[in-house]
């Protein structure tokens, strides 16, 4: 805001210059709080997964070992981490004021995110086609719900990236746009972190049995 506060002096009782605050800082802080609540959503899902990850909850159907594709899981992990790297490099370009680099990085992150979704979707589809869909047993219900909730985060992230590509080209590096790109970086890092937890918890622990 282009207001000149220079002539108003703070006193012991009143402080006219206090209105200047940093909107990006407040928004980023608010976004961290949102991520905390989102993390609690995944905490509850993981806790439910732990409860239902038991032969008695599989109702004769498969547990994790029969439902996952471990090599695909490893591939997906590399893909999603590469996507985060691409987005992070994009924000480095933003710091340098390089619009082309930023756009390219985001597009790369989107392509990798899309590839992740494709692999994940194909695997889940194949599993459901074998008759082991989410309605087969309580275990498969939580298995699908956990993976699809993470997938939903990727879909939202991709939609957000499309919107940001448009906003970068229309508005350039405004305060709003930069703030949103920084929050999107947090969000993208967050969903990758969740995926790493899914990979360890569902794929590695489940596949080991």
């Amino acid at each position, binding site marked *: *805001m*282009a*207001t000149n*506060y220079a002539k*108003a002096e*703070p*006193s*012991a*009782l*009143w*402080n*006219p*210059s*206090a*209105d200047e*605050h940093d909107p990006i*800082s*407040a*928004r980023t*802080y*608010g976004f961290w*709080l*949102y991520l*905390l*609540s*989102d993390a*609690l*959503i995944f*905490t*509850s*899902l993981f*806790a*439910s997964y732990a*409860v*239902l990850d038991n032969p*008695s*909850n*599989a*109702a004769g159907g498969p547990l994790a070992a029969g439902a996952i594709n471990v090599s695909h899981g490893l591939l997906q992990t590399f893909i999603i981490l590469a996507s985060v790297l691409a987005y992070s490099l994009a924000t480095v370009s933003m710091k340098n004021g390089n619009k082309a680099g930023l756009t390219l990085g985001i597009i790369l992150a989107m392509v990798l995110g899309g590839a992740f979704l494709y692999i994940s979707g194909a695997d889940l589809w194949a599993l459901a086609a074998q008759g082991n869909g*989410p*309605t*087969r*047993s*309580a*275990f498969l*219900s*939580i298995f*699908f*719900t956990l993976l699809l909730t993470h997938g939903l985060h990727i879909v939202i992230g991709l939609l957000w990236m499309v*919107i940001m590509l448009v*906003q970068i080209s*229309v*508005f*350039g*590096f*405004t*305060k*709003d746009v*930069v703030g*949103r790109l920084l929050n999107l970086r947090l969000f993208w890092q967050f969903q990758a972190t969740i995926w790493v937890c899914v990979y360890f918890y569902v794929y590695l622990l489940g596949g080991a049995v």
Partner: protein
Amino acid sequence: MQVAVDGPWSPLLGRLSLAAIPYDNPILVTTFAIVVVLAAVIVGAAFYFGKVGYIWREWITTVDHKKIGVMYIILGLVMLFRGFMDGAMMRTQQLLADGPASPGYLGAQHGYLPPYHFDQIYTAHGTLMLFFAATPLVAGLGNIIIPLQIGARDMAFPYLNATSLWLTMAGAALCMISLFVGEFSNATWVGLMPFSEMPFNPGVGVDYWMWAFQLSSLGTTFNAINMIATIVKMRAPGMSWFRMPVYCWSSLTTNIIGLTIFPVVTVALTMLGIDRYFGTHFFTAGYGGNFMLYINLFWIWGHPEVYFLMLPAFGLFSEIVPTFSNKALFGYATMVAASFSIGGIGWVVWAHHFFTMGMGPQLNGYFSAATMIVGIPTGVKAFNWLFTMYRGRITFATPMLWAIIGLVLLLVGGLTGMMLSASVFDYTVHDSLFVVAHFHCMVLVIGSALFAAVTYWWPKVFGFKLDEVNGRLYYFTFVVASLLVFVPLFYLGFAGVTRRLDYIYNPDLKSLLWVSEGGIGVYFISLFFFLKMLYISLRDQIPAASDSWGTGRTLEWLTHTPVPFYNFAVTPQINSRDELAWRKANGVENVQPTQYVPIHLPNSTAVPFLIGALSAVFGFAITWRIWWLSIASLAAIVIIIIIRSFDKNEGYVLSAEEIARLESRPDLASIIAEQPKRSSLAHVEAI
């Protein structure tokens, strides 16, 4: 009235048909007539007095935290009334349906409510009182008070704040619609499992309950984010952490609890929703479903939720007791520590809600002990208030009276809570009216704090005090009514009456049921005095001073009464914990700022209201399985959010000259006054 959702379905209207409207039930038809007449009177009055534009511009589309707070409180009071009517119907049913010889009316075998209808009423009573009465009242007071107490212009995210309000409104609207279209859940406010599942409960009631609950918890989560960010980021210069009023501390604790628990119940309800809509097996009775998972998740939210409502009440007492004792709060640091202790312990006691479900002695022992520990910080708080009053110059104004009865109820509710925390005792009275009486004492503590706070801060918001004479009559009748209604329930619980009974077998309990019913009658008298108090105060409108009670200590009493829409003409510099008390002690409480600087304020926006309205449409459509409408409304919400993200509107600037003019005429800047259209500041700043 049950509408089976596995019955006929049409692509256009889903399960909705004329059969869903309960026109054969005289109770609901009468209620519908009253609601329609009231709505017609309100809307008609708005048109008659030409206030439609004003309501739209100044209220519906506002992002001002004080107006949002007022709307929250209005919603809370209306829903409190509806919840009270549900409670009155329940007590009357139990009085009438007592003993095998008791007569039946209106198609009921005993009493006047058939079991299916009675079940819906207690479900609605719990749901409404917690999510649409207590929570909005707490959120509304927080909205009004917090930014004023920390010297901020507004909340950190005003637009998100309005969205929270309209999401809560959407949930309340769904509850109201369920009265007249279809039915409400009959599975209790906690959602019994697997009874809430499709095979056992194929009606739309559970869906109404679930979506109303979801929308309100979404609103509460957003509100929690907003409150925490406001308290952390928006404090006036000089207000270090330990200069914050205790209410801000308790609000911070509360909202940390809110932020961490509401996602859990969102997950639990979403799982139930997936079960009901897609046929999965989280909580079903077969295919490996585990309904204890639901009960645990629900109470992992549910118990901290109790403290989510209780801690703000404690914070409100901590503001009101010092003001009317004319003395600084005793034990500030211990008060803060106690708030955080209660918040923290609240997370680890959830299983005391189901001691009798077979966890075994080790877990029961742990949860008993953990629950008892909550008594320690709560006791610290109670003694701090007592020591604040000790040797203070106490004024028995209405807010102080409410605070004192709140303390008494806290003692009764707290000690019975300690009894219940012993799992061996709990086995005897589990799910009895003793438990009902215990938690009603506790929610009445919250109620007392809310009535105290509404009376206390009313002049700050509206510029005149509530009538003291009728306020006292309201207070005394309310206290007598509460004792008459709930004290007999303790005994009835011991006598073996369990909760949620539409029929009581033992006719010997009639006299106690009569006492309880008499209390309901006194509640109606207190309601009369409440309305009379509002009427007389609104009629007379005796202007109040900026420090309305004369002994205010915190920052909000420094600005004008009624508070201007920009809160403080110039942001105050904070020098002490009780800033106004400090200024009074130094004789500078009347020193006004000498020069003004322009203030940057956000523009009104209809987007939050649209999001709320579309959420209500979504909830209704998905409840009735009108798939096209649910998809369309959800898509519309996403599109509106995207369009809004392209909006470059950066608010407007209130010039120094205009502030000077408004400061000389505070009534023009009140939140009731209509503001002229001010030119928008539409520029984009490059970094």
